[in-house]
């Protein structure tokens, strides 16, 4: 099976994010970068499929020079080769813009399966994978926890609301967006990193791809979430207070 995994480099989980001077993007200096979490699960799913059924795993990432380190990490974990779409204007491309780039790079590869993470930890559109499937005119399914190969195509386990799951059969080729936590991730190994050095990373610039060059979106302003700390005292009898608390937890905080 030939599988393409589209991955993204995002700021590290612990990274202290600051807004840049122009107010349109975060301050990138001093940031440390990591593989987007659900992309890590997409990669893992692809590697497990390859281990069971053979084939090839190709990682694909659009991003500036620095994304190379994350691509190396994916190669170290077991991907066979990589395509790096060199572009440093991701902020000017929304999910459609990025999906166009990815689709253009994927087309000549003609893969059996395309996996992406469910959404990115930075912009969090949650649409890139789905639009990508549309652009390539492929059947797709989102929120996938597990993929299994069947005689006719694949069977996938999909997460629904409130602890429900759905099992779907899809023909191949197909595109899936993978949810975090469906499987156990492997750790990077020294041997993997050493082997990755000899693996192919093909670099193309965004301009080289047959994609319209105009911006699909422009970021006007970004802001950090405002921290709020308010205290409310619920009055009334214990029963009334409890009822009010449940009400608030359910509808205001949405914790229940």
């Amino acid at each position, binding site marked *: 099976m030939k599988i393409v995994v589209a991955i993204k480099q995002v700021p590290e989980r612990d990274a202290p994010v600051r807004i840049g001077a122009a107010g349109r993007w975060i301050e990138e200096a001093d940031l440390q970068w990591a593989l987007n979490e659900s992309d890590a699960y997409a990669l893992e799913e692809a590697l497990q499929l390859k281990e069971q059924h053979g084939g090839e795993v190709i990682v694909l990432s659009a991003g500036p020079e620095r994304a190379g380190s994350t691509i190396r990490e994916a190669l170290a974990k077991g991907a066979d080769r990589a395509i790096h779409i060199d572009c440093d204007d991701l902020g000017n491309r929304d999910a459609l813009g990025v999906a166009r780039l990815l689709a253009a790079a994927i087309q000549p590869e003609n893969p059996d399966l395309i996996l992406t993470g469910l959404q990115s930890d930075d912009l969090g559109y949650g649409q890139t994978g789905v639009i990508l499937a549309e652009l390539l005119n492929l059947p797709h399914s989102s929120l996938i926890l597990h993929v299994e190969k069947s005689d006719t195509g694949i069977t996938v386990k999909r997460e629904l609301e409130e602890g429900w799951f759905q099992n779907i059969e899809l023909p191949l080729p197909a595109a899936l967006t993978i949810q975090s936590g469906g499987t156990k991730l492997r750790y*990077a190994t*020294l041997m993997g990193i050493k082997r990755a050095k000899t693996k192919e990373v093909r670099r193309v610039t965004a301009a080289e791809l047959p994609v319209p060059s105009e911006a699909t979106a422009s970021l006007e302003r970004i802001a950090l979430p405002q921290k709020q700390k308010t205290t409310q005292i619920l009055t009334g009898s214990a029963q009334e207070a409890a009822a009010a608390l449940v009400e608030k937890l359910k509808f205001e905080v949405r914790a229940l």
Partner: protein
Amino acid sequence: MVQTPFTLAEPAAFPLVERFLFAALAIASGSLFWRRFGPIFRRILQSKKDADFRLAPVGRRVWDFVSEVLCQSKVIRQRPLPGLAHAFVFWGFCAFALVTLNHCAVGLGVGFLSPEGFFGRFYFFFAAVFAFACAIGILGLFVRRFLVRPRWLGAKLSWESGFIAFLIFFLMVTYLAAFFVPAGSQTITILWWLHTLTLLVFLPIIPHTKHLHLVLSPATVFLSRGSFSRIPPLAGDEDFGLVAGTDLTRLVSLQAYSCVECGRCTEHCPAANTGKTLNPKEIILGLRGYLNEFGPASSEPLLGKHNPPIAPFQCTTCGSCEFQCPVGIEHLPILVGLRRGAVNTGTWEDDHGAKLFLSLERGSNALGMQASERDKFIQKQQFPIFDGTQEYCLWLGCMGGYDPKGREIVADFARVMRFLGTSFGVLRKEKCTGDPVRRLGNDLLFQQLAESNLEALAQNKVKKIVTICPHCVRTIQEDWKEYGTPPEVEHHSEFMARHLSRLPRPSQQETIVYHDPCYLGRYRNVYEEPRSVVSHSGQLLEAERHGERSFCCGAGGGLAFLGEETGERVSHVRAKELVATGAKTIGTACPFCNSMFRDALASSSDAAPQLLDIAQLTARALPQQDAPSAS
């Protein structure tokens, strides 16, 4: 009639036939020896070269040789009675070397020591004293092995050992008997032949029994890496640790063949004593078995037929095995090496291990918490940020920065520093030193953590670090050296011991039992400083096992992060020993030990003693201040 002086009687010249017979037998015995020893010798030489081996400093090697081989210091110190018995056998052999040489020369008609000559007479008596001591010694060891039967020597009785003991005893008897036989008697020739035949039988037995240590262990001790738990750097792009036979280095192979199976390593091993698979002796013998079956050129995995894959991962890296070993085997580089082989190639699959690695790949600490938690703690404690003007960088470590009890310890130690007027600051960002991943054999992650920390320390111009965690101390000072020059680092016990005279004593003097952390004691040779701190705030009690022979808490080697143990918990065994002293308080000097005992004490129903770090013991006597609480 001339009175013959009392001395050794030697046979007169042998007839030519007997000379030839002796020469033929000696050649046969020698070739049998070589037929068995040759392949072993070749397997050692065919093993990979130790890339980091340096003969210098020779002085240290000579000293180790004199102390450990010639003076038998380790043999005697750890087991005085059997140790002395062994030493007498060994010294007997040394003294006997010249006698044996002469004995053989006599057989060829070229004896050079004459019982009539002054030196000959002296030397024969000299050797006789040792022969006597040796005979007693070997008798004692025989009684120990076959009648007392300590379980460390293994459940199976080794008849080979019995036979060898008999041969040694018989060698001594046939030598001593020759003092009581009149010169010229036929008995002398019989004794000579009996002695000779015993020797010639003994020689070929050596290479295929544990008595090979006679030949190898002096070399093993002399050539050992020297420093405790020295993990050699990986050599080149194809070195991932001990994966297969091709990764066994000469030192490892030499050590594998040197094991004398005395079981001291097992006797002190926390894993072997609590029902785990790991037995350090079996690891070494497993490698020997591997070398015998597959050889050093094989690509057969080392973890498999001869060593169970789980065993190395049950090691707490407490180092008692290496510390005790009398023949110079360095268990830790081997155990960690086997882990490196499995982890660096990704063959080790363990959910907890993978979780630890992933949280350190993506995050900053081994506890898998958000780095912002550390920021909040620093703010709450009002710790100054290190800016190059302060004397010390207070290194929090994962336990000190994220664990509730570890935070209390750091907070109290900061109070002590503030009281003393010592300036300190903490780093804005700190990553795990890499201790757990270093011991678990993840070289990739360890390198990333070491380099990132070294860079941060250099940027902040840190000159001196002090920390509450002995694991951090060890890793910063020794293990980081592979990737740069770490700043000076010391443990808070050393810092406080230096300033004791300026620290107040508590009014009540309670009894406190001190537990030696492995990484402070055996790894750093710091035993007295924490004890002086404990004595400052109470009456020091010692557990039965303490100091160099202290028993591990079970947390080291990354095991604190690997989930439930099989068998009995190491921490419970140790906590019981500490409680048994009847002390009111258990004093610890390592946040990992502290956390292990906290859990162990909580699970016992008895009234548990208090559990406090030495920093907390000290801070109790400080005048109250409005310090923010740690939690």
